[in-house]
């Protein structure tokens, strides 16, 4: 072992061993292992293990519009208290402009309003008060809406029985979900697509002309039936009680009514509900979910126990899903699904199998080719290549990276590209062997001369891979990870392991001359 320092041999051997040992958990791949060592395995991406990726967008515009409506209601109340007449209210995209009959008390109105909505921009000019949704106020609405939505989405997903979901905010107004192993993505999308705003309203059966003209008087709203768009109800705008007062809801079955959802109110809800049902016996009470009336039964007696059932034309699944939605609570604003990628377990397994075959065949082809071209040196390079693969796998496992289908492609590509460094070295050795005869000097020069080229060549590939990671999404990131790890590992295996193997081979074979 001429010229080969012991510390260097030690480093190379230990790194190789570490690479092989830490690849074991990913190769055994025991999904449920709790063992501290076996837990360090590769995570399979949704495209390989099956599951759903969903990107949801919170419909903030709806919230901004609602807030403007709230402004109008509050201004009306305040000016009624102050006994100031409103001439006109102008609702624009971003602001509400209120025209008062006189301007005497306009400052008082402004101050009272500001007490209720701190942060909005208020401006007085003559008899006009303009209330503006400024950027800061929008941001407050936005942040709280996203926070609430996240919480409710999480509850709904948990209730749906999905294991290990990943739910996180993405950008300004989006929520990203990764749901491994979901078999029925349509059901999940249904659960997420509903706002689930539940309210109870007293039905106004006296004012028939309002329904005929389709024009709700002040303080009333017209709401269609869930099952028949043409059936409409005139309801008190103010809800008697809402979903926020529910403490429990579950699917139930009633001999006469069929599948239903039974619910229970908290103390406050029970009191309100009891009071309203006591005072309105004989009238109808509409159950409104997301802008449609599910049912509007007649109040036959006061309901003071704080619980009840909602009946509709439900089947068992619908009733239990509605119960899930009511338990989780209402979303502050509707969610829209803007991207979905769902993969079934079958396709995922097929992809893994195909990727493995491609990797093995690619590996065999490259190895055979290397031996055909470089003989023994080719075989040494092949050892490096195989170790390289182990190192990639062990790095993926220890950093907890996610392996995706493009990631597998990255590994296969790395198999082809990883020998490049070896080729560069061998070609230099070949050239050097023409210039001199000292075997170890040839090898040393070969490695030294190839070094800067190897670095230059691999750094450009790394740059491309890193930018791909920065700008890429999901599965593509998996590709950039395996490619980067592959490039880094190949530099190590070529410059250190191949180097070590070549020295060992030359020492033990006691070569006096070198012909490549």
């Amino acid at each position, binding site marked *: 072992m001429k010229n080969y320092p012991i510390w260097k041999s030690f480093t190379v051997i230990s790194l190789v061993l570490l690479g092989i040992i830490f690849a074991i958990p990913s190769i055994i791949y025991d999904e449920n292992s709790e063992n501290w060592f076996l837990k360090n395995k590769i995570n399979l991406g949704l495209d390989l293990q099956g599951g759903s990726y969903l990107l949801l967008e919170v419909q903030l515009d709806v919230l901004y519009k609602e807030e403007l409506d709230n402004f109008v209601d509050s201004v009306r109340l305040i000016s009624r208290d102050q006994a100031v007449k409103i001439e006109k209210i102008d609702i624009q995209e971003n602001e509400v402009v209120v025209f008062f009959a006189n301007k005497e008390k306009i400052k008082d109105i402004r101050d009272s309003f500001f007490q209720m909505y701190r942060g909005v921009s208020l401006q007085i000019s003559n008899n006009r008060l303009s209330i503006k949704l400024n950027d800061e106020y929008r941001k407050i609405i936005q942040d709280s809406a996203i926070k609430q939505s996240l919480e409710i989405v999480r509850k709904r997903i948990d209730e749906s029985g999905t294991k290990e979901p990943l739910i996180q905010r993405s950008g300004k107004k989006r929520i990203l979900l990764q749901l491994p192993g979901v078999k029925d993505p349509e059901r999940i999308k249904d659960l997420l697509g509903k706002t689930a705003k539940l309210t109870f309203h007293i039905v106004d059966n006296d004012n028939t002309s309002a329904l005929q003209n389709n024009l709700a008087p002040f303080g009333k709203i017209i709401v269609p039936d869930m099952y028949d768009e043409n059936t409409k109800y005139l309801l008190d705008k103010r809800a008697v009680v809402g979903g926020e007062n529910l403490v429990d809801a579950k699917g139930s079955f009633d001999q006469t009514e069929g599948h239903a959802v039974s619910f229970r109110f908290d103390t406050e809800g029970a009191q309100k509900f009891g009071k309203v049902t006591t005072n309105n016996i004989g009238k109808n009470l509409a159950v409104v979910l997301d802008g449609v009336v599910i049912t509007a039964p007649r109040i036959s007696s006061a309901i003071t126990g704080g619980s009840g059932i909602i009946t509709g034309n439900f089947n068992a699944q619908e009733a239990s899903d509605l119960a899930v939605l009511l338990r989780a609570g209402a979303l502050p604003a509707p969610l829209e699904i803007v991207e979905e990628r769902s993969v079934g377990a079958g396709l995922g397994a097929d992809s893994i199998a195909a990727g493995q075959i491609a990797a093995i065949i690619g590996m065999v*082809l*490259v190895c055979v080719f290397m031996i*055909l071209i470089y003989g023994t040196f080719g075989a040494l390079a092949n050892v490096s290549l195989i170790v390289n693969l182990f190192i990639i796998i062990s790095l993926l496992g220890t950093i907890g990276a996610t392996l995706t289908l493009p990631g597998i492609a990255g590994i296969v590509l790395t198999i082809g590209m990883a020998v*490049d460094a070896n*080729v560069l070295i061998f070609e230099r050795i070949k050239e050097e062997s023409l210039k001199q005869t000292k075997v170890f000097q040839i090898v040393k020069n070969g490695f030294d001369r190839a070094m800067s*080229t190897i670095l230059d*060549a691999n750094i450009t590939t790394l740059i491309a891979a890193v930018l791909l990671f920065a700008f890429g999404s999901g599965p593509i990131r998996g590709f950039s990870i395996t490619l980067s790890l592959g490039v880094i590992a190949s530099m190590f295996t070529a410059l250190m392991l191949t180097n070590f193997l070549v020295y060992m081979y030359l020492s033990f074979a006691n070569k006096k001359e070198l012909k490549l």
Partner: protein
Amino acid sequence: MFGLNKIIPVEPKINFLGLRRNFLIFSILAMLISIVLLSIKGLNLGIDFKGGTLIEVSTKNTSIGELREILSSSYSDVSLQEFGNENIILIRLQNKSNQESIETVNSVKNLIQDKVVEFRRSEFVGPTISSELLFRGFQAVSFALIAILIYIWLRFEWQFGFGAVVALTHDVLFTLGLLSVLNVEFSLATIAAILTIAGYSINDTVVIFDRVRENLRKYKKLELVDLFNLSVNNTLSRTIMTSLTTLLALVSLFIFGGEVIRPFALTMIIGVIIGTYSSVFIAVPTLLIFKFRPQDEDD
């Protein structure tokens, strides 16, 4: 042992630059045709960039014709395609809005429920997302090209950087042109492939440039054309070896890696061939524009 490497001589003397005009004309034509193709025919954009819905199903006792008949009665813009084998079928739909798509997937699933063994995959990309993805892909490619060039500029003289830009632009345009001709689906994975090709092609170019720089120091008197020829010849067997091993791995991926990854593998195969060609026949001759030595300036 086998010594097949003797096929390529250690110091080959092939006059690569002698034919540079022919190759230059070929490449300029290829780029022009690519530009025309891209502006007239365009790329076969997948749902990542066009938006829409894609459903992959495995079927039994049915045919693509039967499924098409069932679906086209409800949807005018539905397209079906066999994917790998006749039992696996891809269904594509264009949707105008996000809400519509959810309903579409549901109703498509209901319509063909009894013909289907498994719903293997369903993807939906909304209109806002597809344009964002396109923008981000464009951003990634541009930044990567700029970063690579900055690196080349720092490590070599600026003239080499210029040669690298010309070669890279050539590779990207030519590859896109071929993708357009072959009607290969252009997806997020294609962007990844193009970036990797850029990295690979530069890698190849850098190895030859490295040798040019070394030879410039070594042979002070040699004519530039001869010096460049020598450098290409010095690195020739490496260029061929690395391209071949990379292609071996990619062909294996193309044949055995499954239907989903096939367009990616094909794009990479095209790119590796073009990248290797351009390093030798485009990047190096471009350097002839510049005078590298003081004495050359006296000529």
